[in-house]
């Protein structure tokens, strides 16, 4: 892991397109500004890790058992339907 020291208002470049700026430092809280292209998602790590754990748990799901699988028929391709139009919005 690369460790760099920065002072207030200094910044770090990641690749050519991402910049992280130290916006404020207040005791144990650091406020970071992130400049990145719109197609790159930026998120707090702990949320990402929680999603990761949920996926790993879901992948070894207990929803169906091996016994059930043997008794029932074979799996079929699923047909996906579009999300309801009036429910999904775009974050401004």
């Amino acid at each position: 892991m690369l460790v760099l020291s920065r002072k207030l208002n200094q910044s770090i470049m990641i690749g050519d397109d991402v910049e992280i700026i130290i916006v404020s430092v207040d005791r144990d809280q650091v406020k970071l500004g992130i400049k990145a292209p719109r197609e790159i998602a930026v998120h707090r790590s702990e949320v990402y890790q929680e999603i990761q754990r949920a996926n790993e748990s879901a992948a070894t799901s207990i929803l169906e058992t091996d016994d059930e699988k043997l008794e029932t028929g074979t799996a079929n391709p699923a047909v996906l339907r579009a999300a309801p139009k009036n429910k999904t919005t775009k974050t401004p």
Partner: protein
Amino acid sequence: MNMNSALGTETISSSDMPNNLSKDVTMESTTIRQTEVRHFVDLPRFGSFHYTDSETIAFPWGLPGFADLRRFVVLTSPSTENVIWLQSLERLEIAIPLTDPWRMFGDYSPSLPESALLSLEIQAPEDFAIMNVLVAESADGEVRQFLNLLAPVVINLKKKIGRQVMLEGTTYTVRTPVATYQTEAETIDAFEAHHGDE
């Protein structure tokens, strides 16, 4: 019908033809009508399954926890109603259960960040499907289900690309309780304890 070849494609051999025709007719290796190559896999969790290239969905960014898995199919299994399984084609033991969130949360209104819409090349609302990861946990004879409403799986239906998208500035959670039910064993015990040996 002929068996599948080792390559997983169906072929029709001359032995399928009635005897009086087999001498006169030559079968070309390509069939007359254009059919897509059908791939066959033996899935550890669902048994035999077949799919075409156009049924494959790409996940260019993988999924959190499975960043290296890029090719999936979606399937349903008779033993799990209302669940659509996101089955990895690269690690056959990995299949993630997804479900339609509006079945349980009629007011779910995810606001998708621009990064998601751009990266998935979504242009119109009818272009994409949204489903959420279902987690089932068993403890003390109870099965609890949770739905990840914070990070829906979004799939561009036209381009066949998908991504798990984290919603921003939202109160939705990763572990939203869905249903709690007792396992069958527990229910029988409870019934017998209540009714005794009748």
